[in-house]
C-alpha cells in the first residue's frame, strides 16, 4: 500500500513490478480503480504501468494492480490531497485571553478558510465582519493562523481550517476549551494556604520550644 499526496494538476505514472524469483508462468496483471478496469499504458519485462492525467478531484482515489497467479496479490496506491497538520490535543485557554490556532500543509493551497461550529451549523469566519475578534494571517504559503481575541465561554467548541487545492479540499478540526480563571485559582489558593499554615506552625513551634528551653 502506498499513499501519494497531490496538490496541483499533474501526470502520474504508477507501476507494479514483480519480483523475478516469484512467478515463472505467465502472470495476468490488471489495473483497477474500484470495479472499473484500466488498460495499461506500458508493459516492460516484469512491470506493468499506467499513466494518469489528473486535472481535478474526480480522478483521485485508490488504484490497485492485481496479479492473478496461484493466489491473487494486490497492491494499492492511494491518491489524495495533502493532509493538514494541526494541533491534535484540545487547546485550553482562559476568558479574556487570546487563542491561537495554526494549520500547516505540505504544499501551497490556493486558499485557506476557517470555520467554526455554531449550534449544528458550520459558519465561515469572516474577519472583516469581526475585526476586533478574529484575526486570520497567512504566516507563509503553507501556514495559516487564526487568532481569537477576548475569549468568552461561548467561543468554546470545534474550529477547523480548510485548504483548497486544485485537486480538492482538505481540512483539519481542532477543539477550543475556554476555562474561567477560577479553575486553576482554586487549587492555587488551596496550596498557598497550606504553605502559610505549615510555615506559621513550624515557626511558632520553634519559638515555643526555645522559650521552654530557657
Amino acid at each position: 500500500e502506498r499513499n501519494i499526496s497531490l496538490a496541483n494538476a499533474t501526470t502520474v505514472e504508477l507501476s507494479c513490478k514483480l519480483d523475478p524469483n516469484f512467478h515463472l508462468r505467465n502472470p495476468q496483471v490488471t489495473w483497477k480503480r474500484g470495479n472499473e478496469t484500466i488498460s495499461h499504458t506500458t508493459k516492460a519485462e516484469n512491470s506493468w504501468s499506467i499513466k494518469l492525467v489528473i486535472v481535478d478531484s474526480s480522478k483521485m482515489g485508490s488504484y490497485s494492480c492485481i496479479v492473478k497467479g496461484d493466489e491473487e496479490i494486490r497492491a494499492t496506491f492511494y491518491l489524495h490531497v495533502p493532509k493538514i497538520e494541526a494541533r491534535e490535543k484540545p487547546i485550553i485557554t482562559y476568558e479574556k485571553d487570546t487563542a491561537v490556532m495554526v494549520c500547516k500543509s505540505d504544499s501551497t493551497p490556493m486558499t485557506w478558510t476557517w470555520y467554526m461550529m455554531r449550534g449544528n451549523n458550520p459558519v465561515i469566519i469572516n474577519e472583516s465582519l469581526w475585526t476586533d475578534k478574529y484575526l486570520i494571517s497567512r504566516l507563509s504559503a503553507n501556514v495559516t493562523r487564526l487568532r481569537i481575541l477576548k475569549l468568552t465561554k461561548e467561543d468554546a467548541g470545534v474550529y477547523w481550517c480548510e485548504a483548497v487545492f486544485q485537486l480538492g479540499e482538505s481540512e483539519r478540526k481542532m477543539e477550543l476549551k475556554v476555562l474561567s480563571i477560577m479553575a486553576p485559582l482554586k487549587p492555587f489558593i488551596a496550596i498557598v494556604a497550606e504553605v502559610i499554615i505549615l510555615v506559621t506552625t513550624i515557626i511558632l513551634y520553634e519559638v515555643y520550644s526555645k522559650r521552654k528551653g530557657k
Partner: protein
Amino acid sequence: MQAEDSNPPDGGYGWVVVVSAFMVMGLTVAVLKTFGLFFVEIQQHFDGLASTTSWITSVTIAIFHLGAPVASSLCARYTHRAVVITGGLLAFSGMALGFFGFNMVWMYVTTGFLQGLGISFSWTPAISIVSHYFSKKRALANAIASAGECAFAFTFGPFFQWLISQYGWKGALLIIGGIQLNICIGGALMRPLASSCLLEAHHSETRTPPGKSASRIDKEDKSPITHKTFNWMLLKRPEFVLYAIFGILAAMSFFVPPLFLVPFSYSLGIDESWTASLLSILAMVDFAGRLLCGWYANLHVTKTIHLLVMTITLISTSLMLLPLANNYVSLAIFTGFYGFFFGTTVAIHITVLADVVGMPEFDSALGLFMLIRSSGGFVGPPLAGLIVDMAGDYRAGFYMAGATLILSAGFLVTLDQLQQRKERESQTSTKPEKSTLSYPSLHLLKH
C-alpha cells in the same frame, strides 16, 4: 580541626534537615528538568522559533549557576533558612507571574530569570546545610537529599502533562508556582546550627585564641572578609583549582547524554512511548544509584575521592559502550548503567568538595564551584552538537561525553596524589594545621 562546626549533630534534627533538603531539591531541579513539557505549548502560543523558546530554559540555567555564589555568601550573612525561603518566594513568583504570559520577553523574565534565581537561592543553601549538619554520615545524608531530584522528576513528568491537559499551560504554571511555594516549608525547617558562620564572624573579632597555631589566627582575621565577598582566595589553593577543573570537564559531559538519548533512540527506530520509558528508567536507576552510593560511602571503607574516580570511570565506560546499542533492550541496559553511575557520581561529588576545602570555607567554595562549573555546562552541549553534526551520528556525542569524563578523572587522580603528598608531609610535623586533614586522617587509620 572542626571547631567551627564543633559538634555537627550527625543525626537527630539533621535528618529533618535532610528531608527538607530532599523536598527543596525536588521542587527546584525536578521542575527545571520537566519544564521541557511546556516548550511546545509556549512556542505555539507565541508563534516563536524553537531556538527563541529554548532561551527560556537557557536563562533559567544561566541564572541558576550565576546565582549560586551569591546565594552562598548570603547564606553566611543571613542564615541558610532565610535564603531558602527567599528562593522559594522567588521561584513561586516566577511561575505564578508566568501565568499572565503577555509575551515572550515576559516569559524570559518570569519563568527564566525569577525562576532561575529562586531555584539558585533554594538549592545552594539546601545542599550546603546538609553538609554542615553531618560529618561522619555526610555522604549518606547528601546522597539521600540529592535523591529528591530523581524522585520528584519521576512523578512530575506525568503530573505536569496532566496539569497541562486540565488547565492549559498558563494554569499549569500558576499551580506549579504554588507547589514551589512549599520550598519555604523546607526552608523553615532548616534551623541554623549554633556553630554557624554567622556566630564565627562575631567571635573572631573578640576572642584571642590562647596557644593555637599561627594559621588559626590568620584564618580568623580573614573570616569576616571571606564571608562578605566571593572567596577568590580559594583559587590560590591547588586542590580547589584541580577540583574546579574536574568540575568543568564533568559538567561538559553531564548535560550531553540526556540531550542526545531521545534523538538517538528515535534514530534506532524506537517509538515515542518506549523512548519515554527510557527516561523513566534513567530516573529510577539514578535514584537507586544515589542512595546506594551514599550508603556505601557512609561505610567509610573507601576514601570518597577514590570512590568518585571509580564512579566517573564507570560512567565513561557506560557512555563508550552505549553507542553499541542497536535495539531497545540493549539501549535500555546501557542507559540503566549510565543512569546508575550518574546517580552515584552526583551523590558523592558534593561530599568530595567538602573534603577538599573543609567545612569553614565550604559555603563559599560551593558557590564558586557552581559558578566555575557552569562554564562547562554552557560549552558542553553546543560542542557536542557540533561534533554530532560533523560526524553525522549521535553516537559521536556519547563518545565525546565519555572522553571528557576520562579526562576529568585524570584531574581527580592528580588531586588525590597531591592530597596524599601533603598528608605525608604533615604527618611528619606534630600538629595538623589544616581542617581538611582530620577527615582523611580518619581514613588513613582505617587502612
